């Protein structure tokens, strides 16, 4: 309704002369539909109205994204919307909103009594005031406000399709969650308001071409993250939310610094900064280094990983949406966006080293984790590191790997977080060891979780294929090769351990039908379908979404992977699925035997007990190896954080030195 009114006003007073009116409308809808939904959820506390609003917003958002995808494929290149076509008061809206936001953050800092937060926000405040009012930077005619190219489209598709599915999951999950927390007054209106607001901010963030607007949206996502992590209002959630806030604020300071430098160089337009060779100077690289640093903090790279791990106390939809599928992708999006500017430079080399090191360090620590959400968190950090590594390498295959990995990881990891959330409600535990025999109690969720984990681990699914592409693109850098090879091996280790536990099952003639809420079931099934479709359609994805982007940045293009190979491997997987079903249906229970326990089995053929000394029955307990002595979190965190921090310092040192001697 709001969007329609807005559009009518817009159409009457500001006619877009360049003929892209439908595309502009769709883009604005992509931003305003979730915003409208958010406000409705906040103002009207009725649960049924909330459900309808969420479903309608989701359908609308997904539809808009698909329409934009279709239109952009037909049009090619990108959709460009100039600032002068928008109302003239818009820059003032930005200035006022910015100040309001920073004052809100300051207020939070005071309320929490954290001087560091206050300090960081104050620095950003001063920097922004300087930039907006005193730096003399002015927008010029021909400035682009929104640029929707294929990279933005990929991000919009991720945010608008995976995002709503997660919000729909939350519809079924949150009532259960609040029951477990013994909340007297439901905080769901606030929860859904922030979730939908966040989706709106993300859609705007990935299409905006002006860095000062992007900074504003970036800080909105930081605020959303803070509010959502502290949703349960328990002591530990507030503590972890504060940590997320100050770490992301460090990134915010870096962002403002970058913006100030760019304003001195003459432009805050991303499209110009990436392509205009005349802007390239030592100062330019310092600013880009600051932006990459902001990306590092947002994507929880080492040494900033602890905020993401702490964020796991938040309800599961938060972990799925913000901390694996979308918000952290904003961090890597920024780095991938600026990748053409740093390819082949020393800055690019060090960005890829920092990313690559995080990839292997996070994968190593994940081996020792027992909490399912922590394993997923470390895996997320690891994959984000790989995306950054590919962005730093910058050749066509690496860029392809980065963009494809963004898509594949968002959907698979989102799915896995939702599964873990469902499992947590089902069995009351997040410990991997408690997931043995899960298939008996929750067959649907277990199947979905297993396929999700396999999609993160094995060929022919996308995540592994992009890892393979990353390796093939890193061939000129031996250190990166070693790092990716090691990380790859560690990744297999921790996924295989978890898969082994969750697949543990004894034969049962009849399985329970799981009691599962419809919205949860729908979102899990939809995401699973998405995972499978994306994996099979990897080559078409490349052709329609990635190749046009590569062409737009004047990169070479090739064939990333042999289609026949993917099809062959999927055929084998299909054969195995066929055999599973066949063996299950033809199973005769007279073929069942107990496991070998040196003859000390009890009558229970499942082998969960054995005859101990003095004819007593004892439980069989077998746990995974966690290798704490080698991969323990305590052991490795300090060491890896120091190494990574040194890498970042070296990265800055290199660009600052170049500037100082010029």
């Amino acid at each position, binding site marked *: 309704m709001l969007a329609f009114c807005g559009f009518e006003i817009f159409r009457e007073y500001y006619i877009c002369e360049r003929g892209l009116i439908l595309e502009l409308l769709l883009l604005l809808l992509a931003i305003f539909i979730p915003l409208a939904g958010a406000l409705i959820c906040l103002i009207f506390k009725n649960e049924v109205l909330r459900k309808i609003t969420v479903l309608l917003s989701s359908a609308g958002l997904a539809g808009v994204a698909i329409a934009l995808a279709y239109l952009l494929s037909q049009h090619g290149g990108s959709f460009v919307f100039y600032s002068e076509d928008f109302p003239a008061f818009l820059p003032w809206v930005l200035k006022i909103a910015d100040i309001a936001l920073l004052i809100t953050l300051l207020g939070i800092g005071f309320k929490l009594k954290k001087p560091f937060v206050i300090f960081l926000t104050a620095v950003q405040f001063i920097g922004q005031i300087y930039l907006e009012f005193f730096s003399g930077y002015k927008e010029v005619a021909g400035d682009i406000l929104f640029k929707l190219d294929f990279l933005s489209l990929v991000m919009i598709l991720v945010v608008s399709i995976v995002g709503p599915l997660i919000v729909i999951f939350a519809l079924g999950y949150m009532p259960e969650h609040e029951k477990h927390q013994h909340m007297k007054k439901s905080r769901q209106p606030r929860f859904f308001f922030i979730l939908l607001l966040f989706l709106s901010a993300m859609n705007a963030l990935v299409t905006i071409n002006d860095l000062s607007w992007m900074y504003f949206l970036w800080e909105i996502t930081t605020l959303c993250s803070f509010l959502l992590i502290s949703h349960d209002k328990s002591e530990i959630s507030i503590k972890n939310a504060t940590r997320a806030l100050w770490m992301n604020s460090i990134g915010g300071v870096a962002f403002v610094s970058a913006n100030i430098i760019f304003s001195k160089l003459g432009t805050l337009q991303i499209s110009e900064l990436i392509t205009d060779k005349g802007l390239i100077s030592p100062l330019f690289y310092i600013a880009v280094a600051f932006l990459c640093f902001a990306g590092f903090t947002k994507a929880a790279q080492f040494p900033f990983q602890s905020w993401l791990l702490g964020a796991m106390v938040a309800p599961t939809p938060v972990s799925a949406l913000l901390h694996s599928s979308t918000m952290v992708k904003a961090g890597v999006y920024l780095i991938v966006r600026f990748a053409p500017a740093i390819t082949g430079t020393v800055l690019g080399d060090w960005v890829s080293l920092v990313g690559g090191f995080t990839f292997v360090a996070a994968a190593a620590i994940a081996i020792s984790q027992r909490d399912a959400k922590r394993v997923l968190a470390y895996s997320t950090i690891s994959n984000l590191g790989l995306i950054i590594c590919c962005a730093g390498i910058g050749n066509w295959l690496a860029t392809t790997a980065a963009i494809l990995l963004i898509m594949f990881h968002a959907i698979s990891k989102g799915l896995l977080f939702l599964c873990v959330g469902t499992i947590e409600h089902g069995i009351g535990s997040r410990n991997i060891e408690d997931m043995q025999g899960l298939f008996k109690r929750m067959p649907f969720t277990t199947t979905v979780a297993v396929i999700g984990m396999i999609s993160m681990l094995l060929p022919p699914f996308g995540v592994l294929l992009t890892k393979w592409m990353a*390796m*093939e693109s890193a061939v000129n850098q031996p250190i990166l090769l070693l790092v990716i090879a090691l990380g790859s091996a560690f990744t*297999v280790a921790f996924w*295989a351990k978890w898969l*082994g536990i969750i697949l543990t099952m004894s034969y049962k003639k009849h399985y329970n039908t799981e009691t599962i809420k419809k919205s949860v079931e729908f979102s899990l099934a939809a995401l699973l379908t998405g995972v499978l479709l994306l994996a099979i359609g990897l080559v078409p994805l490349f052709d329609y979404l990635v190749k046009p982007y590569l062409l737009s940045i004047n990169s070479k293009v090739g064939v990333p992977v042999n289609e026949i190979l993917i099809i062959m491997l999927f055929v084998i997987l299909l054969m195995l699925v066929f055999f599973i079903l066949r063996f299950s249906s033809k199973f005769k229970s007279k073929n069942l035997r107990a*496991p070998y326990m040196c003859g000390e089995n009890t009558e229970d053929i499942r082998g969960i007990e054995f005859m101990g000394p003095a004819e007593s029955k004892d439980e069989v307990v077998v746990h995974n*190896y966690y290798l704490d002595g080698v991969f323990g979190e305590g052991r490795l965190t300090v060491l890896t954080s120091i190494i990574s921090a040194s890498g970042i310092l070296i990265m800055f040192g290199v660009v600052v030195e170049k500037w100082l001697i010029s």
Partner: protein
Amino acid sequence: MAYFLAQGNVFFEMLLVIIFIIVAPILGGLISGFDRVITARMQGRQGPPLLQPFYDFIKLLGKERITLNQTQAVFILGYLFFAISGFVMLVMGLDLLMLVFVLAFSAVSFILGAMSLRSPFSKIGGQREILQLLSYEPVLIIMAFGVYKVTGSFAITEIFVYGKPLIFSLPLVFFAFLYVLTIKLRKSPFDFSTSHHGHQELVKGITTEFSGPQLALIELTHWYEIVLLMGLIAHFCVKPFWVGILLAVGAYFLEIVIDNISARVTWKWMLKATAILGVGVATINIVWLYVAK
């Protein structure tokens, strides 16, 4: 070996692949048989007849089909199918790095099959197999990089086009590969997830709860793996190819000797040893290839 494909003759290529798929396990079984006979002679006894592995295989096929749950057989099929896929990729000369990943899928399928059973020996055997995978996977990937650095491509067909023996440029990578070959062939000192012949480790470790036809398929897959690994060694010297084959035979004989003279290690020892003598040594080789450019 993609000779026919290069000529555009898909039919002959497919025929060649099918012939290789049929011949490989027979060859693998014979190598296995020679292994047992030579081991026995080294130990001063007569040993079984040469065709013993085939008798074992046929006998296992004829056993009663017993199982613990309804899914374990499928994991063994996954182990077999992906190992055959890897072998086909080698025969057709496809991407070496992807071959390593397909083999990893094969190994993971086996691990999951064992870990999905409620048996202490099977689960711990599976855990140890994961540690073995952790040890040899980086070395295989680095080996693929080494081949790329020398020939300019990951495709195995390019090794034939390159012409010169790879072992001259990749001696340390070859050494590291031999070192982890012990792990892949399940020989002492690294046979600690399961062991062969009359040895026992964790009873039968990862294979404890697989019997009859399932165990026969595990044996079959092991034969394919033997031939695949021998083939990979042979590719270190392709012109003349008989030298490569000699290299492979010599390497296998070396493995038998090492098997007979060493005791089993712990996982810590294995990780440390492969980190230094596998990953470390292979990396040194790669680094000098980069520096030499």
